[in-house]
Structures are given as structure tokens and as C-alpha cells.
């Protein structure tokens, strides 16, 4: 089955993360190539799984355009990871820097892990009538390519904020180290949760860590999270030093942050908002209806519009704008996952 192939790709992404960490610590060029190689093999297996799933969809739907596997939460998460890793490999090749590989493989690992832990169905499902439209392809693919661009912008922006913050007490420093710490905690928790799965159907995220039924383990996990945050806060400058040793400076980080948004924003506008509106107009008889998904897309759009305009305001250059890029991606995650998990609306195809 296709999802088993994609799970293997996910496993390889997760393995790529420690390889990148070792590379950053040892500075051995060969290990860096090993990390990139792992991501490349992961992408190839992922693409194979994607094509396999396409075939499975085609057997049900018998339509080429409508068989692209992006029709539910599982498929879209997986497609997002594919775009993210491919996008990162392009950035790595273009700028010749491997430093972001850690965080990118980490995000990819978390996303693939979530498909196991959110209890989403991985089976190929037949399309409901509302999804039978050629706009599906244009709307969803462009949205997720944009999300992936925002993710890359987020990674660079996060490092940029960290690198340019003045001291440990500054908001920028605390924000960036806390997010980093939480991400590392999340991936560990996801791995542990996946390893301790007992019942595939009733599985929940953090079931073994923060939400463990044993109070002792739960408290231990919360303390671990706080410890992570403390460690990153205390030794955050080590990360900055390592980045600088790899000639990743603030200018480069700012540029990648900007490029990610400059690429993602128009794609998000056309794919997410405009194509979404046209499709909604044809399917539901209104182009805009303040549905939670639509509203949060607009909020995401405003945050990134804020980023682009802030660049014009005097005194807003540098890391201040990168904070917006970081917040922008957090809002993007909410638009994508949070709305499906917490708010109800018409975009229920992406629900559990």
C-alpha cells in the first residue's frame, strides 16, 4: 500500500535529522553529504509512494486530474512534507548551506509523525461530490507549495531572530529558543508516542508523554519540556556560533526569509484565496462566506502582507520583520491544522 511506502520515506526524514546534527557538530563535509543524501533518497521513495497512491486513487475515480492524492488531511500533510523537503533541497543547492537541514527534517518528521498520531485515515477514499472539481488540483497544490515556502521562510526567520537578538532577556531570544526547544521536544514525543502505540484507532498525540495516564510520567514529561526550553535558552548562542562557523550570517538568513515569503505569498494568494474563492463560487454559490478556513486564510494573508509592508517602514528592517515571518508560519499552521481540529466549518474534508 502507498501509505507504507510514504511511512518509510518519513522514517528516512527523521533519520536525516541526527545526521545533520552530527554534521553541524563535527563539521565533516562527508557527513553533510550523507544528510543530504538521506533527504534525497527520502524524497525519491516519497515520490514513488505518491505515484503509487495516485494509481490507487485513479482506480476509484477514473479521472487523471481528480486523482492527485491531496483530498484529505493525511494526503495533504504528506504532500506538504514532499513540497517542504523538495523546496529545502533546492535552497540547499542554490545557497550551498546545509545548516537548515536539521530543522527541515525535524518539521518533516513531525508532520509525518502527526499522520500516525492524529488518528487520521490513511486509506484511499472515494471523492465526495463537492470535491469533484478541477479546481481541487489548482487550489490545493498551490496552497501547499505556498505553505512549504512559508515553512522554509520560518526556519530561516527563526535563526535570524535568534542570531540578531541582543541578550537572553530579550523577547526575540526567548521566543526563538522556546520555539526551537518545543520543536525538538515535539519530535521526541512524536517518536516515543509512535513507538508505544497499542491501539491504532484510539491513538492520541502526547498520549505517552504530556498526557500520560500515569501522573509520574506526565510530570516527568512536563519537566522535560521545561528542561528543553531552559537548555535552549541557556545555550542558544551555541547555535548562533555554529551557524556562523558555517558562514550562515544574518544577511543570508534575512534573504531566505524574504525569498520564502516573496515566493509563497503570490502562490498563496492565487492558489489559496483566489482559486479557493472561484471554486467556492461554483460549488457553494458564494465566493466568500467567512467560513473559519477562509477567515484564517485571510488572517494568514494579512500577516504576510504585514511582513512585506513592514519592510518599507523605516526602522523595521532586520530581525523585527523576521519575527513576523515566524508568527506568520504559526498562523499558517493554525489555518491548516488548528481550524480542522478546533473550529468547525465547510472544509471538513480535512477533518479526522
Amino acid at each position, binding site marked *: 500500500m502507498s501509505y507504507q511506502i510514504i511511512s518509510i520515506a518519513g522514517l528516512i526524514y527523521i533519520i536525516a535529522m541526527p545526521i545533520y546534527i552530527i554534521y553541524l557538530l563535527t563539521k565533516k563535509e562527508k557527513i553533510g553529504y550523507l544528510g543530504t543524501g538521506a533527504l534525497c533518497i527520502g524524497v525519491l521513495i516519497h515520490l514513488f509512494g505518491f505515484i503509487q497512491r495516485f494509481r490507487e486513487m485513479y482506480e*476509484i475515480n477514473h479521472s487523471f486530474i481528480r486523482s492527485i492524492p491531496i483530498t484529505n488531511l493525511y494526503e495533504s500533510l504528506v504532500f506538504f512534507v514532499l513540497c517542504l523537503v523538495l523546496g529545502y533541497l533546492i535552497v540547499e543547492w542554490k545557497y550551498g548551506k546545509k545548516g537548515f537541514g536539521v530543522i527541515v527534517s525535524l518539521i518533516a518528521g513531525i508532520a509525518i509523525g502527526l499522520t500516525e498520531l492524529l488518528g487520521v485515515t490513511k486509506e484511499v477514499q472515494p471523492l465526495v461530490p463537492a470535491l469533484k472539481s478541477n479546481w481541487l488540483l489548482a487550489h490545493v497544490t498551490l496552497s501547499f507549495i505556498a505553505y512549504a515556502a512559508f515553512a522554509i521562510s520560518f526556519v530561516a526567520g527563526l535563526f535570524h531572530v535568534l542570531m540578531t537578538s541582543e541578550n537572553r532577556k530579550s523577547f526575540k531570544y526567548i521566543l526563538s529558543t522556546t520555539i526551537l526547544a518545543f520543536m525538538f521536544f515535539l519530535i521526541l514525543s512524536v517518536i516515543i508516542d509512535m513507538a508505544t502505540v497499542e491501539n491504532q484507532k484510539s491513538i492520541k498525540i502526547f498520549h505517552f508523554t504530556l498526557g500520560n495516564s500515569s501522573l509520574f510520567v506526565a510530570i516527568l514529561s512536563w519537566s522535560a519540556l521545561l528542561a528543553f526550553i531552559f537548555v535552549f535558552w541557556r545555550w542558544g548562542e551555541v547555535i548562533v556560533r555554529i551557524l556562523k562557523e558555517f558562514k550562515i550570517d544574518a*544577511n543570508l538568513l*534575512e534573504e531566505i526569509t524574504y525569498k520564502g515569503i*516573496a515566493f509563497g505569498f503570490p502562490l498563496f494568494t492565487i492558489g489559496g484565496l483566489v482559486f479557493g474563492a472561484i471554486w467556492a463560487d*461554483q460549488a*457553494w454559490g458564494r465566493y466568500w462566506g467567512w467560513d473559519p478556513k477562509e*477567515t484564517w486564510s485571510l488572517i494568514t494573508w494579512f500577516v504576510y502582507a504585514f511582513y512585506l509592508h513592514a519592510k518599507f*517602514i523605516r526602522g523595521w528592517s532586520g530581525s523585527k520583520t523576521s519575527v513576523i515571518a515566524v508568527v506568520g508560519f504559526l498562523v499558517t499552521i493554525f489555518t491548516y491544522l488548528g481550524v480542522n481540529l478546533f473550529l468547525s466549518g465547510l472544509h471538513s474534508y480535512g477533518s479526522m
Partner: protein
Amino acid sequence: MAKWKLENLNEKIWNFFASVDLAVALFIVISLAAAIGTVIPQQLEPEATIRFFSKFFSMDTSLKIHEIVSLLDLNNVYHSWWFTFLLFMFALNLVVCSIDRLPNLLKSYRTLPQALSMKVLESMPLKKQLILSDISHLKEKLSEILKRKGFSVNVFDTPEGIQLQAKKWSKTRLAVYLTHFSIIVILTGALLGTFFGFRGHMNILEGTALDFIISDEGKTIPLDFQILCEKFEVEYYENSAVPKAFRSYLKILQKDKPVMINGKDTVILEVNEPFSYGGLTFYQASYGFQPTEHAEFRFTFLHEQDRKIPIRVKFEEKVRIPNSAVLFSVIDFSPALGIDEEGRLFNMTTDMINPAVLVEFDNQGKKTQQWILKKIPQTWDTPYGKLRFDELWGAQFTGLQVRKDPGVPFIYFGSILLCVGLFVSLFLRPINYFVIIDKNKVTFYSPTLKGKVTIEKQLEEIIKKLKGEGK
């Protein structure tokens, strides 16, 4: 003095509305307001809203919160006066900002380029200096390289040396104003839709016609034509309750006569494929089960090999099976017949997933009963011949969404402008280089902040070429 003060105030107000700061403030405020609207339930009855808050707070607090919420229209954010006001400010900001800046930009295209002073050049964020050994034809070589890269080049003689100005894609700066204009177009479209359009729905029972719409506000809007639903059908995926497609076969009737649309008198309406008539657009939205008097069970009696005799009966109506003395009637119907764990029959839903009829045969007083299922051919065999159950006609209604919105062309046009504007302004950024050639010393300046690393890379390429050809 007073006049001067007034002018000063006017200017202040103008600058306020033209500022990026206002734009940024509006981005934040509108976002927050919109976010509130996704958390607090919108457009519900007061009781339902209070019930929502009582999930988190005590009853007394919930009542107080509800008071505040309804005072500030927080349960109807997107249609509240203050949200409309914010959007209006947003539009005003866009207009004033464009009027403020566009003329200067246009003027800069019309005026002839002039040599810049060293003070201006030195203040630019990017500077790169190099000393060359070969200084012959430096100006010509550099112009040639820049021109081959698509730049337009102007040359000036200044006291500090020869000044080269290279420009590329400088007109793409206009695209920002196209983007801003497109948002105004979209907002205009939305305004037109709010004032001159409406939305509503009509539920037409299979086999009947309707000549009015129920608007979303609950008003009845008469039509000057009728819509007849001749047939409605739902297809399901095999062995599944997931609908694959549903469609209505509609006729537009003017004075009881069908109107031809695209050369046909029947319109097939499906999800994602709306159709328009008389300034209104109709969408296939929903469907439902509603048994009525005029509903009829449609059978086909499969006589020997080829002869098929259609039979139509109403509920409990007795009909003779062809060429026999046997009477049969439908005494029960199930849209979705299922069998529970103990082997009992039960009805799963009102969706026609697995339609079945309980038929009673009366052979001169000898009565027998049998379930006939549409989807299972084995059940068509009866003691008196093969009787296929085709459908129950007239027991479902089709739910149509109806809309009139004169703003839609504006929305589409604005969307196209928005995309074009964004792509041009973000992918084709203007690039400017200023070069001072002073004997063997060449200094490059660039005023562009965004994409500094890329520009440095391009500059290095240019320098490499200059050096390579200089050798």
C-alpha cells in the same frame, strides 16, 4: 496664521491616511477581529450563544458576556458596523496612499536621469570597490556587460569620475499600485453584491414545480418562471453510504411551456456545475427524503426474454401482474434496508442507499409477502415472474442554492489584477546599479535592500566578467 494651521492639519490627516503605519495597524486589527469571529459563534439565537459561553463560565457570567458580545456585535462580527468601518478605512488607506505616491513615481519615469551626488551614493546599503590593472575602455566594457544582462545604461561625467547608471525592470514598481487597485475592485464587487444581490434556496420535490425562492433572511421572492424537477438521483459508491454524485433534471417553465436552454429543454444540475437563468445562478446544494401522495413505485416486469413491461403503482394500490390473475401491492418501503446482527431487517437512514419494497401478492385469496431490493437481482424473482424494482419516484426533494450577485464580475476581474500585480511586484523586482569609474578604481553601489545576497552574487558575476575581459 490660522490658514497655515489648517493646512498643516490637512496635511497631517492626509499623511495619516497615506501611511504604511495605518495599513499595518489595519492588518493587525482586522485580523484580530476576524479571528474573534471564528471563535465566538456567529449569527445564532441568543440562547445558543449563551449556551456556548456556559460551557466555559458560570450561567451568570455567561449572561453578562452575552450582553457585552451583543452590544459590540461580536456574535455578528463580519456584518457589524465597526467591521465594515475597518474595511472602509482599509480601502481609504489604499486609495489615499496610491494618490500620494503614484504621481511621484510616474514623474520619475518622465524626468531625464541625472547624475547622483556622492552623498546619495555613499548612503546606499550596498557598496563594492575594486582596483583594476587594465583600465582601457573600462566604460565601454562595463556598459556592454550590463546591457547584455538586460539593463538600460546611462552615462554621466562627474567630478568624481564617470558615473554609470544601470536600471532593469524599473517599471515593475507600478505593479504594487495594480495590486492595491485590484483590492479596491474586489471590495467594490463585494459592496455591489451586498446591496444589489441576494442569496436563497428552493427545495423542489421530484415531480413538482416551484416559482419562488426563500431568501436567507426568510423572505419569499417570487420568480417570473417556474422550475420543474423532473427527476432527482443520487449515485453511491459501491457498498458504501458515500454519495458519488447527485443531480437534478430540471425544466424551466414559462407559462407552463419549457424554455430551451443551450438547445435543450432539460438542464442537468450537478454539484460544482451551476447554471444561470434570468439573472440568477442555481447550484445543486443538497437533497432529502420526503414521501408524498404523488410518489409512485416504478417496477419493470421482465416477461420471458425480451419483453419488459413497466408498472407504476402508488402505495397500497393493487395492480394485476401482466397475463395473470395475481394482484400485487406495495405495503412497505425502506430507503436503506439493512440486516442487524440478529437477522432482523431495519432501515439505516433516509438516504436511498439500498431502496427496498415489501410487496404483497394476492393469488385468489392466497397472500404472500416478499422484499424486493433494487440493487440485488436475486430478490427480483417472485413465484409469479421476475419483478424488478426500479425506483421510488417523487419521494425526494432537490435542494437548490440560488444567488443573484452583480458584483461577481468585479471579483473575478479584481482577482486577476491581484494575481498579476503580486507576481510582477514580487518576482520582477527592479534592480539598480550605480557605478563610479575613477581611473582604475571602480565602485559599485546599489540602493536595493531586499534580496541583498542575490544582488551581491550578480554583482560578483559582473565583476568577474569585467576582470576576465580586462586581462
